[in-house]
């Protein structure tokens, strides 16, 4: 018989060896995921940086952030390749013509190849996406929180409510393109809103509503029952209880989960494709004649722009620049919005804790 000391020193058993293999696979899958994520973000950052950054002051390509997309003209001049935006190219041609007229010769206009949307920037797209996110999230949070409060605080917890919950949950699984189609039929055609901000808002809001409702219900449930009882025992009505002893404590949870909603609303292309997005629009959203026209105008949006420049125009090195530049701005924008909401949640949390 082995002494106790020898027993402890024994080499690894079959069980331990199997455990090592299992841990190896777990670790490997974690690393693969990490690698995949890093590759995706790395590619976007690397390729996008070529568009968004520039070697000389101010190091950020302001044009790309602050101007509308334009056609790029590329031509040979004195043996060098020159790239010019549509606007610059027109001025350049006008100047050539003027010089030619002054000297009495006929103007020699260089032959140029043009690439749509490869010059200028994506300012209207950023604005459009921000507007879509702000409007649809306001609608979704308003309707979603109201529904969640009704379902979990007021409604009798019977089979009807269970059925409604199930329906909401199923709604979350509906593909976004179906929501797009629904919005097109409902808001664009039936309500006659045409392709417009407001049609996009409602379509996107309906798409994220299940997420918002489910998350809000969870956050409401997480508020201790003692808060409700404490308030009611002081003579509060149901609504006073909810307003003053429940919602303030559920809000951080609701906001956290609506961050997911923000990323989804900002990112989905399909729901806005037929309801709100324009490929190209000269006017900015605030350039409207009457204030209510604001709601009934289509907008340009980042995800749709990526889709357009990746599939609707000839592919070449110039279109690739816009694609990845837009993607990088888009990723950064979502990151900024998400961090802002996290910060907001942190602020609310720091004030109230249980």
């Amino acid at each position, binding site marked *: 018989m082995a002494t106790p000391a020898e027993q402890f020193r024994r080499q690894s058993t079959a069980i331990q060896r199997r455990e090592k293999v299992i841990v190896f696979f777990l670790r490997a899958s974690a690393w693969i995921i990490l690698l995949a994520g890093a590759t995706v973000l790395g590619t976007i950052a690397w390729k996008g940086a070529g568009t968004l950054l520039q070697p000389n002051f101010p190091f950020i390509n302001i044009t790309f952030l602050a101007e509308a997309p334009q056609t790029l003209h590329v031509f040979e001049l004195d043996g060098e390749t020159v790239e010019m935006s549509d606007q610059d190219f027109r001025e350049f041609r006008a100047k050539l013509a003027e010089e030619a007229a002054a000297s009495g010769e006929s103007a020699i206009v260089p032959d140029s190849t043009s690439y749509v949307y490869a010059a200028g920037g994506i300012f209207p797209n950023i604005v459009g996406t921000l507007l879509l996110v702000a409007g649809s999230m306001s609608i979704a949070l308003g309707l979603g929180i109201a529904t969640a409060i009704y379902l979990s605080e007021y409604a009798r917890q019977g089979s009807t409510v269970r059925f409604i919950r199930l329906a909401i949950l199923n709604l979350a699984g509906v593909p976004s393109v179906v929501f797009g189609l629904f919005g097109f039929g409902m808001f664009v055609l039936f309500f006659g809103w045409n392709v417009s901000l407001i049609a996009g808002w409602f379509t996107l809001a309906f798409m994220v509503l299940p997420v918002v409702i489910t998350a809000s219900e969870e956050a409401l449930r997480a508020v201790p029952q003692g*808060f*409700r009882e*404490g308030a009611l025992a002081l*003579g509060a009505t149901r609504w006073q209880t909810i307003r003053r002893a429940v919602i303030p404590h559920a809000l951080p949870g609701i906001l956290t989960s609506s961050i997911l909603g923000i990323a989804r609303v900002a990112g989905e292309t399909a729901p806005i494709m037929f309801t709100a997005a324009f490929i190209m629009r000269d006017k900015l959203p605030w350039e409207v004649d009457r204030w209510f026209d604001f709601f009934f105008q289509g907008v340009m949006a980042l995800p749709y722009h990526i889709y357009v420049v990746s599939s609707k125009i000839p592919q070449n090195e110039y279109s690739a620049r816009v694609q990845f530049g837009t993607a990088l701005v888009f990723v950064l924008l979502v990151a900024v919005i998400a961090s802002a909401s996290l910060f907001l949640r942190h602020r609310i949390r720091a004030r109230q804790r249980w």
Partner: protein
Amino acid sequence: MDPTTTESPSPTTPAAASADAGRPAIIEVEDLDFYYGENRALDGVSLAIPSHQVTALIGPSGCGKSTLLRCFNRMNDLIEGAERTRGTVRIRGVDIFGPEVNVMELRKRVGMVFQKTNPFPNSIYENITFGLQLQGVRSKTRLDEAVERSLRAAALWDEVKDRLHESGLSLSGGQQQRLCIARAIAVEPEIILMDEPCSALDPVATARVEELIHKLKQEFTIVIVTHNMQQAARCSDRTAFLYLGKLIEYADTQTIFINPSDSQTEAYVSGRFG
């Protein structure tokens, strides 16, 4: 109170159900049946609770103490399927299950302190003013006054007067419970219901709350549920013993503990079952 009282309580008869001589009954329960769905929690309970006294409800777990207590401010209304099927509860002569009763007004007059301390995760000040703000009191002076008055009444003022704007959750368990008592006092109820208010507290904090209960009966009528026999003996004037939803015996605390007339009561208070 005189332990050799000549009052001879015969349990569950109307004689025993009447209040302590000389003190008017503030809560009168008559023949009360209470159900949770199919499950009977109270079975023909009748008792009269005298004002400005501490009345203890004792009995083994699940015998219906909390249910009875929560009938007095109709907190059971919130539970789906919970229903009073028979009998009445009158407070100052008004049937509180009557159709013209405003439950919110009832709860302002019948405050409650819970087993699990439940201060709101707001400041001490906001905890106390919560009830008054519900009633639309906005005046800063009135609120300040109420805060000081309630905290003094709950014997908490000296400990927290310099930190009124800190979170109520920063207090110790015993302080939190006294904060909850102060919160209930702030709306100036007549009756304060306490459901095992000390069960989560250590002996020192418990002693302080008991002391407080003793003091509070000058101003309020107190009904307390407790599992702690010593506590019932120490701080109550009247004791009701419930078992399986029935009121077995209700009398002066002294009588219940020294000379109970029912064998089940005797077994329970002497710790032989429950």
